[in-house]
């Protein structure tokens, strides 16, 4: 196989960009059948890389391998396989899409590749056993029929999973950098701000501040040197939206940043990326180098006289650095301590210069707003929160993964439509949004229309987009305790309400989950929560009590059960539960005895086994190992082992 010469031309005018886009579109259209194998973090963990390698190997073996450069020389390709960014439906990975038909295969293994290739290339058919099946067993032929996707509106995630993020020409083929060209050629910076303002785009980093207003403040602020910063710190535990966008479509973020820089009058930009995201850093680095080489970023962009130099900065593992003032302090090379606002970063930010700081998704939305107009953007979503929201839907939900939905969709549509309901057809209990700053919403609120304001008035937050579904086995007191533990650990320790107050609250919750709570604790928690919200310097402290306050508001009886009955109704809190073997069900197979790590299970052949409670460390392994047909092990709560409370089987 001979590789062709790489097509490359400096893009020295918007007209040239249009021409290059056309060439790229035509070149990629010469691939007749395209297999896109998800190489996002989730699918890689499920083994997608060997699947990709197998596709490439077999295509080469069939003598069909044509590299991208040859497409540009006009060669047709019968087929090609490429790794792509996250397709979203991580739960069912490894995922393979066949384009342009849109055939969607899930749980693909390397052994399946021959069959898939034969079906697509030789027989013009479909491998039915690898299709996604609805709960009633009917298969979904294309991606558009899969309920997980059909309920979504993909704008930010439009290209995620469809393009190879490591080749800028694929981005060009999808109108990449056209919006930047349009902004530079047709609009003054003020007009760009006007369009973004009119679209009513609100920041996707959590607080939902109006982006146009922020840009306008920065533009008006005195001084010649200004900066644009993209917040890629995504620290919420249970959230991976920004990471997926960065990994799957890095150019969209860079293009949005360049437009922001043009609008406010900045030349330098920084992407502050979380330390734990090496793949995102690599993809961004590569994207930046390519964009500068093609002259769509860097000096004299597309010959329009505008310069923009982005740089990557890797964080070093501190959640509080997601907070804007703390992030800027960290960029300047010090401890990431938040400071009082005002002045806001848009007035006085990095090195005391006016700085626009936006979230990844906020910036990724900008190119399309410029391209399609403010009205196009405002047509989706609700009046006060237009556009879409990206959530990482996880927890006790059947279809977990990355989703994008219009603002205003109900929680029920997300959980039961896209999400397919609770795993094992369990009972819904709550949905947690907004991470450590947010709260838990109960079943009564399933009809709530999700947007920035509705979530806030329900005692939660949009946050950056984590949405964790909880079922009856999740203890709400423990969830609140979990988030406090997180914020105590991440507090920078600068102000007393946060440093000491949250710590105190955590101790009270630790006592409650250990069965040592006092009736007066609940009022005390509420009072402390309110004063911390009033007294803390930054958003971390100001929102940290939310998980406690919202669970107290909606799930108070569960707290009371822990305090009064010393019981954990969800059978979760270790100190309030015990494991028990039902002598009538135990068949003395001995499996649990062998697996128990602390030798707490006694028993002999043919005699029902017994757990010695004083030794048991409550690891739950016996419950996992006891064969389903016996189901002799159960968890109980209440006074240890007295069996007075109903035991719930697995």
């Amino acid at each position: 196989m001979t590789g062709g010469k790489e097509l490359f031309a400096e893009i020295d005018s918007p007209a040239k960009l249009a021409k290059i886009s056309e060439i790229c579109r035509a070149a990629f259209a010469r691939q007749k059948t395209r297999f896109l194998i998800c190489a996002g973090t989730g699918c890689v963990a499920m083994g997608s890389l060997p699947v990709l390698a197998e596709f490439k190997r077999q295509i080469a073996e069939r003598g069909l391998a044509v590299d991208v450069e040859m497409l540009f020389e006009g060669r047709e390709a019968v087929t090609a396989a490429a790794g792509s960014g996250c397709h979203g439906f991580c739960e069912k990975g490894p995922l393979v899409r066949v384009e342009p038909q849109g055939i969607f295969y899930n749980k693909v293994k390397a052994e399946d590749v021959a069959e898939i290739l034969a079906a697509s290339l030789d027989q013009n058919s479909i491998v039915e056993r690898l299709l996604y099946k609805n709960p009633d067993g009917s298969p979904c032929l294309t991606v558009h029929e899969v309920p997980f996707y059909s309920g979504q509106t993909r704008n930010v995630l439009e290209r995620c999973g469809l393009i190879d993020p490591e080749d800028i020409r694929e981005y060009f083929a999808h109108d990449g950098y056209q919006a930047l060209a349009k902004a530079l050629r047709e609009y003054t910076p003020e007009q760009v701000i006007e369009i973004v303002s009119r679209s009513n785009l609100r920041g996707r980093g959590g607080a939902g501040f109006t982006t146009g207003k922020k840009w306008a403040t920065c533009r008006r602020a005195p001084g010649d040197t200004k900066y644009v910063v993209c917040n890629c710190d995504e620290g919420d535990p249970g959230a991976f939206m920004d990471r997926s966008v960065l990994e799957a479509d890095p150019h969209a973020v860079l293009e949005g940043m360049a437009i922001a820089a043009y609008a406010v009058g900045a030349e330098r930009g920084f992407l502050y990326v979380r330390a734990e995201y090496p793949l995102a850093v690599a993809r961004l680095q590569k994207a930046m180098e390519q964009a500068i080489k093609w002259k769509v970023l860097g000096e004299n962009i597309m010959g329009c006289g505008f310069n923009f130099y982005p740089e990557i900065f890797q964080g070093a593992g501190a959640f509080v650095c997601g907070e804007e003032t703390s992030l800027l302090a960290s960029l300047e090379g010090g401890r990431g301590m938040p400071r009082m606002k005002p002045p806001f970063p848009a007035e006085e930010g990095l090195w005391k210069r006016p700085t626009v700081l936006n979230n990844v998704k906020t910036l990724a939305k900008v190119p399309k707003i410029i391209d399609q107009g403010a009205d196009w953007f405002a047509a989706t979503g609700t009046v006060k929160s237009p556009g879409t929201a990206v959530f990482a839907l996880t927890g006790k939900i059947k279809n977990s993964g990355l989703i994008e939905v219009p603002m205003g969709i109900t929680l029920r549509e997300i959980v039961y439509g896209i999400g397919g309901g609770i795993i094992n057809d369990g009972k819904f209990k709550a949905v947690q949004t907004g991470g450590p700053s947010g709260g838990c919403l109960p079943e009564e609120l399933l009809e709530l229309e999700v947007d920035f304001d509705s979530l806030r008035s329900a005692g939660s937050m949009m946050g950056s987009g984590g949405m964790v579904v909880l079922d009856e086995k999740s203890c709400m007191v423990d969830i609140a305790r979990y988030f406090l533990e997180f914020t105590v650990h991440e507090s920078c320790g600068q102000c007393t309400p946060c440093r000491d107050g949250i710590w105190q609250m955590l101790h009270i919750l630790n006592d409650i989950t250990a069965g040592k709570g006092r009736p007066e604790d609940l009022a005390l928690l509420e009072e402390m929560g309110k004063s911390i919200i009033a007294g803390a310097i930054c958003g971390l402290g100001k929102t940290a009590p939310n998980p406690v306050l919202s669970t107290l508001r909606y799930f108070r009886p569960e707290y009371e059960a822990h305090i009064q009955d010393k019981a954990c109704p969800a059978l979760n809190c270790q100190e309030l539960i015990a494991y028990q073997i039902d002598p009538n069900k135990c068949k003395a197979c001995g499996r649990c005895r062998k697996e128990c790590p602390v030798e707490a299970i006694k028993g002999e052949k043919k005699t029902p086994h017994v757990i010695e409670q004083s030794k048991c460390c409550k690891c739950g392994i016996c419950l996992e190992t006891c064969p389903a047909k016996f189901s002799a092990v159960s968890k109980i709560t209440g006074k240890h082992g007295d069996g007075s409370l109903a035991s719930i089987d697995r």
Partner: protein
Amino acid sequence: MAAIFSRFKGRREELIPILQAVQEKFSYLPEEAMQQVARFISVSESRVYGAATFYSQFYFTQRGKHNIKVCCGTACHVKGAKSILEAFERELGVASGGTTEDFKYNLERVACIGSCALAPVVMVDDTVYGHMEARRVTECLKTDPDSKL
């Protein structure tokens, strides 16, 4: 160290990237190295130390060869991450945050490694193990890169 410094200009705001480079080389931040960094960017040693201790990514003692990261993010927490972490602690005989005596493993709890759909998740070096169960912990340690040799 000279090789590391040659990649930087010696400005204050380069502190974190420099410390990251130092740690990449030594796997932790030796005291002497931090003193040199302080001189290189002309700030006090306490400033370097203060910044380094602020971030959880930096370590100040010798580290083990393999990293075991047990995800304790929300999605993993609600699916039983705690019992997985306890199983590793038992199996390795170290508390989370610690290093085994033979410097073979570091055990850490981390907040979300971005594979929530596969919760609970454990990462051994670069390999992600999804849908973990406490009883699979020994299996996970058996397939570590060393024992394959």
